[in-house]
């Protein structure tokens, strides 16, 4: 409009929009936790598609024996980047996205504690991710496994005279990329910790806080304490590669096992970093669709904390085959046994949340129930891996591939989809198509079992992991073909999800502010929420503040003392 302000020299009379007012500029310059959260989610899902394509390439190569789809060098880059992408660029950003969007709303805050730091963390993640994937352009993607063992990832000078280590840029992309992502995660974690400790709504004591926020809190502490170990390990490797140091070089007095100890000191807490927020989401979704409060809030919250502490004591269970003394193996077998206990407790608590409820099988609930069923398998085959002598047989075999995918796909990925379907109306104000969502669930569920269950057997039948091909005479053919078919079923399920997303965004029916009749504060505002989240900061009197508000006659605070 023709508004003119003092000192403006334009003669046209329409003030040009500043960059931050354009659509793109608004997103780029935003410090709003909801926008940043959505950007994390979209980025995470984008990299899920990238990592998924990599997985399909792997399964195409392995569908038949003596596969000729790609050469070994390409395969090694693809499998390395599949793991790296899924862990660092899909799961962590997606969970951070949920945390960013949901946690402030859930605890009744107007934003994260440090909005600019929040934006900084996101952009670092995006550029770190692009940096890592750009290595494909140079055919120099990391090719030493997502675990980057030394001395394989030393340069030729560092691994022995003329042996085939990683002289190219491949490992450097990984080292620098994960370091960038590490900084991003540290920034995000600090922000979560301060937000959760300082910005909770009046009355929301720590033991009234929603379990998702609890798990994000534990995850943040894990990241803060685990990531330094990875960063140190990576920087030492970088120094070995380019500055002539010898941290991992046995001939000069270094030790290849130092890498493994440092890496798994990060790597095992990392596994719980990837699963705890998923636990949190499940603990939010099950009650709402069972029409009951979570069963045993205290046990779930504190078992999460126990897992957090114990996760720093189990790292060498990735290293049972490296020749540790028997006493050390017994120690790590014991600590691994201990960490299984709080995990088992959670499963029972979840099931008893459903027992006695009134279950409505909407898409979020299907995925959440699928999570329990599949994560149980991931827990049981994980317990098998802790049986050390059996582990000598199946570590580094396909059995471990089965285990990690039951945990991270059957577990985390199903929880991520549960969360997406659950909070999608809050994010967009639209309901996702329920029919397509159900197709998505059942295809995923069947596809994942078809893909990953045979891998147990492949491991037991002696197939090692990280092989680009296998001979036809070892009895692995049928199971591999089955796994590859399953992978494409999962692929189709993801396409169904994407179609659903596009259709919903275009024609989706409008969602109310509280479509699920939910219990927590994020539903006690508009969908999507206004930049300030709440007109008035709510006052909390129990663990289900929004339930109390809607059903005052049976409010929790009347009957339960927290």
């Amino acid at each position, binding site marked *: 409009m023709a508004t003119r302000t003092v000192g403006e020299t334009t003669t046209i009379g329409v003030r040009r929009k500043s960059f931050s007012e354009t659509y793109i500029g608004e997103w780029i310059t935003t410090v709003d936790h909801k926008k940043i959260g959505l950007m994390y989610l979209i980025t995470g899902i984008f990299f899920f598609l990238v990592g998924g394509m990599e997985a399909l390439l792997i399964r195409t190569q392995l569908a038949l024996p003596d596969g000729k789809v790609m050469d070994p060098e390409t395969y090694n880059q693809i499998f390395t980047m599949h793991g790296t992408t899924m862990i660092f660029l899909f799961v962590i950003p997606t969970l951070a996205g949920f945390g960013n969007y949901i946690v402030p709303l859930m605890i009744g805050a107007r934003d994260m504690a440090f909005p600019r730091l929040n934006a900084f963390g996101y952009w670092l993640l995006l550029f770190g991710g692009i940096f890592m994937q750009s290595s494909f352009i140079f055919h120099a993607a990391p090719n030493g496994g997502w675990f980057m063992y030394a001395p394989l990832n030393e340069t030729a000078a560092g691994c022995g005279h003329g042996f085939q280590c990683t002289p190219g840029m491949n490992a450097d992309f990984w080292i620098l990329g994960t370091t960038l992502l590490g900084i991003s995660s540290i920034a995000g974690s600090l922000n979560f910790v301060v937000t959760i400790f300082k910005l909770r709504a009046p009355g929301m004591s720590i033991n009234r806080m929603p379990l998702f926020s609890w798990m994000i809190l534990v995850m943040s502490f894990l990241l803060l304490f685990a990531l330094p170990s990875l960063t140190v390990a990576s920087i030492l490797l970088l120094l070995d590669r380019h500055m002539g140091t010898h941290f991992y070089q046995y001939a000069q007095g270094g030790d290849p096992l130092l890498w493994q100890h440092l890496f798994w000191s990060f790597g095992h807490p990392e596994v719980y970093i990837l699963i705890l927020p998923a636990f949190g989401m499940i603990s939010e979704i099950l009650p709402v669709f069972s029409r*009951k409060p979570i069963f045993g809030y205290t046990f779930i919250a504190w078992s999460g904390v126990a897992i957090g502490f114990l996760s720093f004591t189990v790292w060498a269970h990735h290293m049972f085959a490296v020749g540790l003394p028997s006493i050390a193996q*017994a120690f790590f077998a014991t600590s691994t046994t201990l960490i299984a206990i709080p995990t088992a407790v959670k499963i029972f608590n979840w099931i008893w949340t459903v027992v006695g409820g009134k279950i409505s099988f909407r898409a979020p609930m299907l995925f959440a129930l699928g999570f329990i069923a599949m994560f149980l398998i991931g827990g049981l085959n994980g317990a098998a891996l802790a*049986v050390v002598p059996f582990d000598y*047989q199946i570590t*580094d075999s396909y059995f471990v591939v089965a285990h990690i995918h039951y945990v991270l796909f059957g577990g985390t990925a199903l929880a991520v989809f549960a969360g997406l379907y659950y909070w999608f109306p809050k994010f967009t104000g639209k309901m996702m198509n329920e029919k397509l969502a159900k197709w998505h669930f059942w295809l995923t569920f069947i596809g994942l079992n078809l893909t990953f269950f045979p891998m147990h057997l492949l491991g037991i039948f002696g197939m090692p992991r990280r092989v680009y091909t296998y001979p036809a005479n070892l009895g692995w053919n049928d199971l591999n073909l089955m796994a590859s078919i399953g992978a494409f079923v999962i692929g189709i399920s993801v396409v169904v999800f994407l179609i659903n997303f596009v259709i919903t965004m275009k024609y989706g029916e409008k969602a109310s502010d509280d479509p699920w009749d939910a219990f927590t504060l994020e539903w006690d505002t508009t969908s999507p929420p206004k930049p300030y989240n709440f007109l008035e900061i709510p006052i909390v009197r129990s663990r289900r503040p929004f339930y109390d508000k809607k059903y005052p006659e049976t409010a929790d605070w009347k009957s339960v003392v927290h």
Partner: protein
Amino acid sequence: MPVFRRTKRWLVLLTILLMSSIFLTACNEPASILNTQGPVASDETYLFWVILVVASIVFVVVEGILLFAIFRYRERPGMPNPRQIHGNMKLELAWTAVPTVVLFIVLFFTIRGVLQVAPEAEPASANTVEVTAVGHQWWWEFHYDKYNITTADSLHVPVGTDIHVNLFSNNVIHSFWVPQLTGKTDVIPGHNNTKWFIANKVGTYIGECAEYCGTQHANMRFNVIVETPDQFQTWISAQQKAAVAPAPGSLAAQGQALFKQQCTTCHGIIGVDATKYVNTAVVCNDALPGSSPNNTTNCPLGPNLTHFGSRDLIAGGVLTNNKDQCNPNSPDLMQTCNLAKWLQDPQAVKPGNDMAIGQLSNDQIKSLVAYLESLQ
């Protein structure tokens, strides 16, 4: 809910399919850990059955409760809101205690098993055969110090005898695995890991590298050939001999001349060049005094070929050494003989491996095949 009922049928089908696949296929896998042939692997696989039983019971019970809850408590029209139960301390303590007890019982078996197969539990005796397994990129070398033998791709051991294996690498980390005889132990530069195993039955067992070690990790297999003590002694005596010189003027003699000219930078044949393969473990270990890191004379890049003709694998098991198909005068030599295929283009057979040779003519390949297969 019709979607649900239809999918239930699917689920049942899928489960039957998955379960039957275990039983249908459980007998045709030569590298299966379920078909153990020695005490170490048996002790390890015993624990598999322990954990399988425990895990199956937990699986059936927990998934059963979950499925029961799903069907029993699904929303039906007119269903009232459920009672708002927040927890039950006794129940929760119970399901903390029960898994704890079960897990600690498993832990007892675990630790007992560790001690059964640990290096300290080795039943060493005067008969123990000591062998050094050297992990190369990407093949295995086996050195019998006592007999002064160095061979590759196949580990010969006597039946019913304790085999003590020193695990050695001077490059990257590998892992030594013979599923039917013993689980893995990593082969780590600078860490002199050892392991032991006993084979109960004469036969050939598949060995693999189980730690990702670079481009051709997939093709780093070996055979463990378990023989009667007599056969083993015969094999030892044969291996200790130098290579027999081919008859002058024969095709094999041409092959030997070509070998001397083209192959000796990386390979040795005792009898042709006696200085090689004296003691790989010592000579090639950069960390040990007296070693010579760039010594290609005593620490050659490629395997000892002195008795190549007696071996059954080529280049880390990427091909079998099908001697009977390798009659050098056969017109189909290039199509049928694996050694000929290998010599024709080793990079096509096993991309990325260290064997770099110029293109050989068919006649040259013929002579090399004749020579190498004559080295019994």
